[in-house]
């Protein structure tokens, strides 16, 4: 698009462009961003999936607000779902049933909204794992990791508030559990529960309050933070995987206009299409089969939406009898401990970039990603975290696992309790060893080349397989990674060895003691000479 000064030329497009530019100076933005280069990799699409799901959620959610009524007033259901005809329920539940059964496309939109929400959180989770395992959180991106982490929490909060809106039996039980957890918190629990529910559980306020959070407050914060998150992506420019020609000082890839506009724009439609396809064919949250909320019945095998599973699992895996009476007050350790465990886990996730930055003391900017194997301890820590999360998550399905695999529930829970402690330790050790093994293999190939499968017999009768050296580009992939070594304890300017120095040295040993150094030119030359003898 060219924007000329007076007089505008180039037909209608030129005229419109000129009109806009003279009022917005948009040509500057086009000049700045139009040919901006973005690197290419499938794993960079995970964040895009999250972003696009959010857009789908906004679109479908707006439609739903035109029909949903967030009231807990009681009505007799008169809609067209026959099994519930005449049943007393809240207006919220009745309007959700009306959307599902009496509005053309209503059920589809509800299911699009729910599936997109599930996808949103899943994509955020996978995106975070990608960032973690490739070290994309390193300077200068630590703050953007923090923003992303808050987005993850907000997405879960959005999920939970939305899940509770239909006021059906399952979501009511979910709220009951939240209420029970809040009540168990020391000092403030009783009052927080009372204020949240506008009196006793369930009361008649909670759905309306959650609705305000769900459609106004949380989306507003979410949207603002997403904008900030993306602004940082532009400011930092995207990270790229290491490779020939790629350095810390460049970005190799394709321009926004036209290639990325087509690919990323098209990808939005692909994500949207897949969500609609799932929503059209797979039922999600069939509230009509649960019925309206009633504090007395509950169905066996109750499950929260998947992303709340790890919190529910933490509750389930507590051993019995953990409650004490101190100073005349009730300390519900069976609530406090899981809540603390979750908070500490989340705090560690939040803080990891800052912890690693402190340990390495590396003040350089990092725009080239690490291959996970080339940061063995980080990758192992990530695996341990994934294991911890996975065990908690499995805990939320302990009863389903027991009934499906015909084992005792007690057995499942006790096994998971042990796994929660040992699993992350084993995951750490195994992952670290696997990474080191892969690094050694890389080193081996970089030094001696790859096996050709060609066996030759030497004049002396010896059989040997011919190795072929890699070309420069392939070798570069294997030798160009960040190498770290533990720091030595050194006195500071005043000749003192500080405690902080000792701690940093100890942590740097933990991270980098087992280390495979990248192949150097000298080593490679020696290997070549050796092979030629």
């Amino acid at each position, binding site marked *: 698009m060219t924007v000329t000064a007076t007089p505008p030329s180039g037909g209608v497009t030129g005229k419109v462009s000129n009109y806009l530019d003279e009022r917005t100076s948009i040509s500057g933005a086009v000049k700045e961003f139009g040919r901006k*280069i973005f690197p290419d990799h499938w794993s960079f699409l995970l964040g895009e999936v999250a972003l696009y799901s959010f857009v789908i959620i906004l679109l479908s959610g707006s439609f739903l607000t035109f029909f949903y009524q967030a009231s807990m007033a*009681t009505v007799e259901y008169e809609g067209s779902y026959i099994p519930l005809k005449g049943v007393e329920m809240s207006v919220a539940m009745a309007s959700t049933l009306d959307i599902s059964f009496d509005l053309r*496309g209503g*059920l*589809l939109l509800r299911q699009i909204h729910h599936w997109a929400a599930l996808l949103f959180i899943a994509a955020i989770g996978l995106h975070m794992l990608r960032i973690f395992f490739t070290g994309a959180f390193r300077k*200068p991106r630590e703050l953007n990791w923090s923003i992303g982490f808050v987005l993850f929490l907000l997405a879960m909060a959005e999920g939970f508030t939305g899940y509770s809106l239909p006021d059906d039996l399952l979501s009511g039980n979910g709220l*009951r*559990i939240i*209420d029970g957890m809040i*009540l168990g*918190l020391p000092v403030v*629990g*009783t009052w927080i*529960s*009372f*204020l*949240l529910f506008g*009196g*006793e559980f369930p009361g008649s306020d909670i759905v309306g309050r959650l609705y305000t959070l769900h459609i106004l407050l949380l989306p507003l914060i979410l949207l603002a933070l997403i904008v900030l998150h993306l602004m940082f992506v532009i400011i930092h420019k995207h990270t790229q995987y290491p490779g*020939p020609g790629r350095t810390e000082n*460049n970005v*190799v*890839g394709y321009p926004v206009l036209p*290639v990325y*506009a*087509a690919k990323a724009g*098209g990808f939005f439609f*692909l994500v*949207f*299409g*897949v969500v*609609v*396809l799932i929503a*059209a064919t797979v039922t999600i949250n069939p509230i009509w089969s649960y019925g309206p909320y009633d504090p*007395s*019945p*509950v169905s*066996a095998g*109750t499950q929260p939406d998947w992303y709340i599973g790890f919190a529910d699992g933490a*509750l*389930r895996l507590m051993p*019995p009898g*953990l409650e004490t009476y101190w100073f*005349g*007050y*009730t300390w*519900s350790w069976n609530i406090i401990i899981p809540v603390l465990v979750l908070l500490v886990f989340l705090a560690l996730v939040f803080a990891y970039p800052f912890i690693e930055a402190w340990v*390495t003391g*590396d003040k*350089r900017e990092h725009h080239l990603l690490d291959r996970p194997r080339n940061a063995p301890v980080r990758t192992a820590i990530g695996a341990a975290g994934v294991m911890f999360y996975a065990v908690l998550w499995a805990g939320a399905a302990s009863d389903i696992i027991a009934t499906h695999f015909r084992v005792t529930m007690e057995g499942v*829970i006790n096994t998971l309790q042990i796994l929660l402690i040992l699993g992350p330790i084993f995951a750490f050790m195994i992952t670290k060893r696997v990474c080191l093994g892969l690094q050694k293999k890389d080193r081996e190939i970089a030094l001696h080349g790859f096996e050709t499968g060609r066996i030759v017999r030497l004049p002396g009768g010896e059989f040997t397989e011919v190795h072929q050296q890699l070309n420069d580009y392939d070798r*570069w992939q294997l030798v160009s990674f960040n190498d*770290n*070594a*533990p*720091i*030595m304890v050194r006195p500071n300017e005043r000749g003192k060895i500080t405690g902080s120095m000792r701690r940093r040295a100890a942590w*740097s040993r933990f991270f980098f003691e087992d280390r*495979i*150094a990248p192949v150097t030119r000298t080593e490679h030359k020696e290997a070549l000479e050796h092979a030629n003898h």
Partner: protein
Amino acid sequence: MANIAKGSDGSELVATSDKRLSGKELGTAVVTTDSFENPGLPPHRQRVTDTDPRRLARAARIVAWLFYLSIAGSLFTIFAYMFFPIEDGDTTSLRLSTLYIGLGSAFALLAIGIAAVHWGKAVMADKEGVDERHPVRGTPATRERAIEIFKEADEESGFSRRTVIRNGMIGAFIAFPLPAIALFRGLAPMEVDPNNELKHTFWKEGLRLTRDPTGVAIKASDLTIGSSVHVIPEGLAELPEHEKLDAKAKAAVLLVRLKPEDLNWTSDKRKSWSYDGIVAYSKICTHVGCPVALYEQQTHHLLCPCHQSQFDISNECAVIFGPAARPLPQLPITVDAEGYLVALSDFEEPVGPSFWEREK
């Protein structure tokens, strides 16, 4: 293992070619002069659409066709909306309406998506570009100017100098949101004390035990050994809907009849709360409040489906597994003159999840 270097080797550390980096900035990172040199971008590989004009023409045709097919999909969706109405009470018509509207729009969307991506990958010029990166921090001149601006502003406003004004402003900023916190007290009714509410239920002396949800009173003789009944107090079913749910959330009870000799009691008082092997326990889990609705007749165990706490009815509903910490509270019951089961009193302890002031 010769290739594992343990510990840092000072001689290995050398300054990099980049003058901005000092050893201090590197931290644990090891940078050597002996490392390989970046071979630069590999030669460009042409796509099949770059070399074969027929393939390029075909790809362009596919892209165009997909966009037109997408239009067809959108039109189909509108037709599906019109010609597959939802008939009242007919779930098949609902399923068809949902399916066709969904399939039509999914097709329209996917066609656009595939077309655009294919256009980008196969038809558009395949020109890889390279952008230069600059440090995120501002240039030295910019940073200097920023500091200068702050200094000037401080000088002109007297922010650092006039401490009385500054501290007053900070104090005011801290104080002004406090009324908002006070306003939040209004989220719950003023006159009700939560602590008191959580300690009492709808049950009181003489109320009959009635079936949930019908409200039909239960005679002791109605219950056979091994049977279990979900119970609400007499009069609860007639409450207005919301009071009903609030009351039920605390008053729901599970009534079970066992052989009297299967019941073990810690005191005669507790035993007197039962009638001929009939016992009534709060149905609200002492963990986080789910209804403990699953009764296992053979073992006399109650199971909470939410977090798998198990309670043993033969031993005063003691916790035998799971995260719950306290037994389910027992409702004292007896029979009245007509043989109906009635409550002797409210529960003697708060029902449901633990809370801070529970023992007060």
